[in-house]
């Protein structure tokens, strides 16, 4: 009997290791021969730990499984009449409605099994790239319409072409796996659940632009991902392209590409002014492709199945799929990969099922700590780069954090400024000083001190941050602040606190 239990950090955080140990122990006690495979997660986190068992009709899922459920599951040989049985995972609505391209294997395979990787279509993209040659590979990536999944949305193929066209003795591929946005975990799931996919994507990038060395920069908050990725790199059969895993050190700003390059070089993670672009002078001054992990992990399927198939998905200038990550107070929190174009309301209400607390949804922050807060009134906004920009927001890395009606939006606006103050690299003045002044001013608003004048000062500060900062940390902090103010003004009207009582 073959049984699958996730080893994904989120599944482990809710007891997957204890469940796996209990299954092994119970099977031994009952004298049943089992093979226990630790997979990544399917991304249906409200059902984790989700256990699957292989049957002649395909896999059958059970969840959420607690160690106390294991005895009855094993005694019944995981039969479909168990109250925790979910049926075939592919038939669960949340999974059935998805278009899984990048996450096709995640949660299904043993992440460190090369046999599994190949058996499930691995390496086809790299093989096709090599048979096409570098120039045609670049063309495929351009034609696919793939844009940077880190948030900036820059066309990946154009970035690669720039590096390919820049002459140098050495070039680098850098994977940005510094996934610091709250509400996002897609990079983590790939590294823990399908790490060879990233290796294949980086190898294709290296082949296309003429680079032989790649770095994966993983944040230190992801120790599981670091372990799995390091092991995958050791096991990798790819010739002619070397990958090194580097670990960050708790600086959010290192998710910004030039700051990440500084950090890789062993320096303070301070942002660089652009130009020069990293594509011309990047890591150690050499032409560098620096891409978000999801961008790189999407390239193998584009090459394997053709650019047209990928570009056929999506809407407007947002082609292909996006792994939307439902998080926070979502009833059905999880990863939902789908073609661009669903409305925010469909994502939050239909797919996410509203709130876990059962209270009404009041606000949704899309795109991480630098993303705007959306009220219900904007739930008709389609999920694509341009539509969100038109509403003074951003899709960022695809995180959607749901808040119920107990949220205090003045507190959220203050937090956005506080976070910017904590994480500012300090290189540019608007971000370094503006964020701290913003927190002080917001405190006055929240104490009811001259609210009109202080809110005007906040708006003015945000203007300076937006147009005067070197990078997106200072530049985008105004999105959560100003959206909270614009859409939830009632939360900023506070009774005047007595100074003595304060």
């Amino acid at each position, binding site marked *: 009997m073959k049984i699958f239990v996730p080893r994904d*950090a*989120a599944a*482990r*955080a*809710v007891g997957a290791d204890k469940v796996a140990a209990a299954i092994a122990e119970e099977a031994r006690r009952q004298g049943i021969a089992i093979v226990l495979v630790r997979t990544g997660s399917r991304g249906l*986190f*409200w059902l984790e730990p989700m256990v699957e068992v292989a049957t002649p009709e395909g896999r059958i899922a059970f969840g959420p499984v607690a160690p106390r459920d294991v005895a009855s599951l094993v005694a019944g040989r995981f039969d479909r009449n168990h109250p925790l049985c979910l049926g075939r995972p592919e038939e669960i609505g949340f999974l059935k409605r998805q278009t899984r391209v990048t996450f096709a294997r995640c949660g299904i395979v043993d992440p460190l099994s090369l046999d599994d990787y190949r058996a499930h279509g691995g390496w086809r993209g790299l093989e096709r790239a090599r048979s096409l040659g570098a120039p045609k590979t670049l063309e495929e990536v351009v034609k696919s319409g793939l844009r940077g999944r880190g948030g900036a949305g820059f066309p990946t193929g154009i970035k690669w072409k720039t590096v390919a066209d820049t002459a140098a003795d050495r070039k680098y591929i850098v994977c940005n796996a510094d*996934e*610091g*946005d*709250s*509400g*996002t*975990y897609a990079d*983590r799931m790939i590294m823990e659940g399908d790490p060879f996919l990233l290796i294949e994507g980086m190898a294709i990038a290296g082949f296309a632009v003429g680079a032989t060395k790649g770095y994966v920069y993983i944040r*230190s*908050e*992801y*120790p*599981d991902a670091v372990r799995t990725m390091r092991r995958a790199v050791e096991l990798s059969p790819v010739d002619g392209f070397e990958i*090194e895993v*580097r*670990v*960050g*050190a*708790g*600086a*959010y700003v290192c998710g910004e590409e030039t700051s990440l390059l500084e*950090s*890789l*070089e*062993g*320096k*303070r*993670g301070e942002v660089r002014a652009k130009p020069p672009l990293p594509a011309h002078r990047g890591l*150690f001054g050499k032409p560098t492709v620096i891409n978000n992990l999801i961008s790189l992990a999407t390239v193998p399927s584009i090459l394997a199945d053709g650019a047209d198939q990928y570009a056929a998905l999506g809407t407007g200038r947002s082609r292909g799929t996006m792994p939307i*990550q439902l*998080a*926070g*107070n*979502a009833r059905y*929190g*999880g*990863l939902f990969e789908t073609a661009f174009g669903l409305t925010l309301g469909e994502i939050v209400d239909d797919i996410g099922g509203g709130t*876990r*607390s059962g209270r009404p949804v009041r606000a949704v*922050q899309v795109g991480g*700590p630098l993303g705007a807060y959306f009220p219900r009134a904007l739930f008709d906004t389609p999920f694509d780069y341009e539509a969100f920009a038109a509403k003074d927001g951003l899709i960022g890395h695809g*995180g959607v*954090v*749901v*808040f*119920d009606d107990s*949220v205090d939006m003045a507190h*959220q606006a203050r*937090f956005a400024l506080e*976070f910017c103050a*904590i*994480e500012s*690299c300090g290189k540019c003045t608007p971000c370094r000083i503006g964020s701290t002044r913003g927190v002080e001013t917001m405190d006055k608003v929240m104490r009811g001190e001259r609210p009109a004048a202080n809110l005007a000062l906040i708006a003015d500060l945000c203007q300076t941050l937006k147009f005067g900062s070197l990078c997106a940390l200072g530049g985008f902090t105004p999105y959560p602040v100003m959206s909270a103010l614009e859409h939830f003004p009632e939360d900023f009207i506070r009774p005047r606190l007595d100074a003595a009582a304060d």
Partner: protein
Amino acid sequence: MAAWNEARAEEILRRHEDREGPLLPILHDVQAVFGCVPAEAVPFIAHALNLSRAEVHGVVSFYHDFRPEVAGRHVLKLCRAEACQSMKAEAVAQSVLDHFDLDWGGTTPDGRLTVEATYCLGLCACAPSAMLDGEPMARLTPDCVDDIVREIG
């Protein structure tokens, strides 16, 4: 954790001598061996890498992970970012801090536990979340204090 000793530090430096831009990997290893980046490490590393002490100090002090002094025997990182906020992480944090009578970043007088803030562990669909000695915990409630006490003995 080992006390500062140059032979151990020398070993770490040798392990990274073929690396490009080796300072962060060196500092991570130094902290893994000594529990912190001790003051003595700064001039030692600077000399070995042909950097100024100011440059090395600048890097050590820039990153939240590197600590100048050893932490408690157990380190609990509680997530304070938005996804966890939406699931009342602050109430969880308050119950933990109150129980151990700590402020953020503080260590219990017996050196058993340090509690730190972190901003996102990528466990956002199972919020609120935390990490105890590198092991993930999620769907926390204020009662999680009991589990933490049990874990740290």
